[in-house]
């Protein structure tokens, strides 16, 4: 078990490209941290630097109390689950799981006992003598997990481990991984581009964009109080509505629209107004006109796509709400309004 | 190189050493030596050599026999390449089309690959035998008094036929695998868009096969230049006389039988330049091919 701390970690490639800007944060012992962001945001590079598969250009990386910048991956006391699982195709499940132990000189009887334990934990016992090619995607995923678990490392690293599974298996494995990590109490860093995974699995989420940390926070904080328009639009499906507006005299006015609403913060000037689709109510006395173009049936909800004052906007309503395309009146919940700087996109 | 390579120094050096040593001794040294001796005139009795500059090269250009050999090599290469590619393409297209027996046809059409060129040449001697050869009789039916090893054109014809025969399997294998790698969906789209099978072939299949064909073109020219040595040597029964021969055969003849070291080296260098040009051409094609796929 260990706490992981990054101090001013940076990655610059020989060609001058800066994949990760100076980054500092600390992961508490036993915490499940998810690095999330669009592809190319530097999340995988960050993870690979923690693993030791990528050199650290600058800064200090500590696992526990030890500075590990120059420690070989094999000696960092970590285990990693890869996106494509990276199982050794010519070895049986048993050998795959035990390979790391064998290389560390663990006695054969101990290896076999530990492999059996891990297999039992992951429901793999009956597959131990098969090769990876004879397993389903979900089973391969479990073997990759087994390979990580068996070594009882100080730190788990996950590199988009669920992205090769179909939607149903993904939901199931998400819960299993989380439960397993809880049970073992091992610190975990998990990389994904899927914000649903980030929301459901993380103790804390780190949102990255273009090699920079946009926000660090609990799923609740990141969802409800996004630090920037980037976070607001990246986290949550459907994403937060972002429309151009103007604040004056404690009032918000949507551009091209007359209605006024109380502003949540004291500010004067152009802003980007953010509101989650579920924080909008259909209301005949509402102050804003919403033009519904398309009605998307989601089962438990209905998602209405349309425009407010010519700007794209969507509203999430209950499944029983009776809606037609065309114009309707809505109210934006005052305490759900978020204001962002129109220039920088940072929260105000 | 891989993203996360190992950092050791001595292990990779040790791993590379055998290959580098063999290459240094049996490739760079001889190649450099050929280049050097192409500028010298070797005393026929082995008593030293004199620097003669580009004389060995200029005397090649003025040498009628060399030019004749060069001309034959060009004609030979073009004919061998064309016929072996054309026949192999026809067979590959048919083998790709039929459902029944496709695998057997593949086996039957490719196994000749494994026959050594001089052995193929020896079979040629029997088929083109002056008195009893069936091919000789076939040509006699058309009034051609076919005399292998005596008549220049007859010997050349036999060399071309045997060389084409020997090269069909390689081309067939590459064409067939090229055809089979064309996605099913593309063929099905073409079936919907064009009802003529011939049209489909020339407008859809053939362009998709073009990279394979270009690649094979180079392979076949290289084959005609170098790998036919055994066939040619067998068919002339090691008796050059008035027989047609390729440039490589002439290098061998002048260097080993004629003891004209400088001349032979100069010829080697000319061939090297030729092959280099071909290879550069090929690399550029291969690069393009990688971009396409």
């Amino acid at each position, binding site marked *: 078990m260990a706490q992981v701390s990054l101090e001013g970690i940076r990655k610059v490639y020989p060609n001058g490209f800066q994949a990760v800007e100076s980054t500092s944060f600390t992961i508490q012992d036993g915490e499940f941290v998810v690095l999330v962001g669009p592809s190319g945001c530097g999340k995988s590079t960050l993870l690979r630097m923690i*693993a030791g598969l990528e050199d650290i250009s600058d800064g200090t990386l500590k696992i526990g109390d030890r500075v590990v910048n120059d420690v070989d991956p094999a000696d960092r006391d970590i285990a990693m689950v890869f996106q494509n699982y990276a199982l050794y195709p010519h070895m049986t499940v048993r050998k795959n799981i035990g390979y790391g132990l064998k290389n560390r000189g663990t006695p054969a009887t101990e290896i076999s006992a530990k492999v059996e334990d891990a297999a039992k934990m992951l429901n793999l016992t009956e597959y131990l003598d098969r090769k990876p090619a004879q397993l389903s995607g979900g089973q391969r995923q479990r073997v990759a997990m087994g390979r990580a678990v068996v070594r009882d490392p100080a730190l788990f690293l996950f590199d988009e481990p669920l992205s090769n599974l179909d939607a149903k298996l993904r939901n199931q494995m998400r819960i299993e991984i989380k439960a397993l990590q809880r049970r073992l109490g091992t610190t975990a860093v998990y990389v994904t581009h899927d914000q649903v995974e980030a929301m459901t699995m993380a103790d804390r989420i780190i949102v990255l964009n273009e090699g920079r940390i946009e926000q660090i926070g609990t799923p609740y904080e990141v969802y409800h109080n996004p630090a920037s328009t980037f976070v607001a639009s990246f986290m949550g499906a459907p994403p937060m509505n972002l429309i151009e507006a103007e604040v004056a005299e404690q009032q918000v006015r949507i551009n091209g629209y007359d209605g006024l609403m109380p502003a949540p913060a004291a500010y004067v000037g152009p802003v980007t107004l953010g509101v989650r689709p579920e924080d909008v109510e259909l209301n005949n006395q509402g102050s804003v006109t919403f033009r519904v173009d398309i009605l998307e049936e989601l089962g438990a909800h209905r998602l209405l796509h349309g425009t407010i004052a010519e700007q794209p906007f969507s509203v999430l309503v209950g499944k029983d709400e009776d809606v037609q395309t065309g114009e309707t009146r809505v109210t934006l919940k005052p305490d759900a309004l978020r204001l962002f700087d129109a220039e920088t996109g940072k929260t105000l | 190189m891989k993203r996360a390579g190992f950092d050791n120094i001595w292990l990779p050096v040790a791993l590379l050493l055998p*290959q580098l040593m063999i290459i240094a001794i*049996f490739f760079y040294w001889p190649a450099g030596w050929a280049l050097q001796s192409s500028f010298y005139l070797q005393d026929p009795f082995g008593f030293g050599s004199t620097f003669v500059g580009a004389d060995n090269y200029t005397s090649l250009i003025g040498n009628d026999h060399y030019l004749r050999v060069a001309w034959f090599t060009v004609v030979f290469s073009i004919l061998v390449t064309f016929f072996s590619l054309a026949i192999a393409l026809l067979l590959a297209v048919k083998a790709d089309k*039929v459902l029944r027996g496709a695998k057997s046809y593949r086996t039957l059409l490719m196994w000749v690959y494994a026959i050594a060129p001089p052995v193929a040449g*020896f079979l040629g001697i029997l088929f083109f035998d002056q008195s009893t050869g069936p091919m000789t009789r076939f040509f006699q039916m058309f009034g051609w008094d076919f005399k292998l090893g005596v008549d220049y054109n007859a010997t050349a014809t036999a060399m071309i036929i045997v060389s084409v025969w020997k090269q069909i399997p390689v081309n067939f294998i590459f064409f067939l695998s090229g055809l089979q790698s064309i996605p099913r969906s593309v063929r099905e789209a073409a079936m919907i868009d064009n009802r003529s099978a011939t049209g489909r072939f020339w407008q859809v299949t053939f362009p998709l096969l073009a990279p394979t064909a270009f690649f094979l073109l180079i392979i076949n020219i290289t084959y005609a230049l170098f790998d036919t040595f055994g066939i040619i040597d067998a068919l002339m029964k090691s008796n050059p006389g008035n027989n047609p021969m390729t440039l490589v055969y002439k290098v061998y003849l002048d260097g080993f039988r004629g003891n004209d070291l400088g001349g032979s080296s100069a010829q080697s260098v000319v061939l090297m330049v030729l092959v280099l040009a071909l290879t550069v051409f090929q690399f550029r094609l291969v690069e393009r091919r990688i971009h396409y796929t």
Partner: protein
Amino acid sequence: MADTTLEAPAATRRPRRIRWETVGDHVVLILGSLLMMLPPLIALTTASHDAVTIHREGLQLTLGDDLGKNFKNALFEKGGFTKNVNGMLMLMNSFILGIGFAVGKIIISMMAAYAIVYFRLRFATLAFWIIFTTLLLPLEVRILPSYEAIQKLGLTNTYTGLIVPLIASATGTFFFRQFFLSVPEELAEAARIDGAGPWKFFIDILVPLSRTMIAAIFIIMFVFGWNQYLWPTLITTDESFFTLVRGIKQIVLTYTDANIPEHGLALALAIVAMIPPVAIVIFFQNWFVKGLTESDK
């Protein structure tokens, strides 16, 4: 089809159409197969006749009585100029050349390709070019200087001189490099995290992963080595080092220069020279085709 009940009254079975196009395809393929098959087959039938028949009537299409005798003599009777080599010795030499060349090439080129692909080496690019330049010049164009080099090293009439210079080309290295590059990166990374060093990774993971590739390249290289002609012709003058392919011309010349040429014997020997490479190509044709087309020669 199951719709017969509905159309029962007027149901007449549709006549089975002969698809002339398909027939045409098969005709072309059968002709092509005959073109490829017949010469060696006729060689086989002819080899079953006695010398006089072949000399007088040429190639034979039927099986004669002397097949066994010709093969026995070809393999065990001492021939050649010096009369002290037989077919068996040449057969053995051919196997030594074919297998020695293939195995040597695979080992050396796998090691070199591994060093180039998996190590952070400052001179990796340089080594790459030094090695891959050799792809440019086949042995045939540098035959004379290569021979001189072998002679200076005193390696004429040795298996080393016969085999090692043939290995001095990068085809195998290029092939394995391509394959190693196609192995997922994560495999090496997982192995590093699992504590496997470079040597362990090579032996435990990479070599077993390459099994099919090794088999494919072995077949191609074996055939290539077996069929070598020019190089053995120069390097081996001592008949006890003759391979079948190298010896065939000499043998043919001595057999055919006799009053009644021993074509039956010569053909039998030619067939012996064909069988091993042909057999390996036919039996392992899937590997062979894979190796040939994926290595791009």
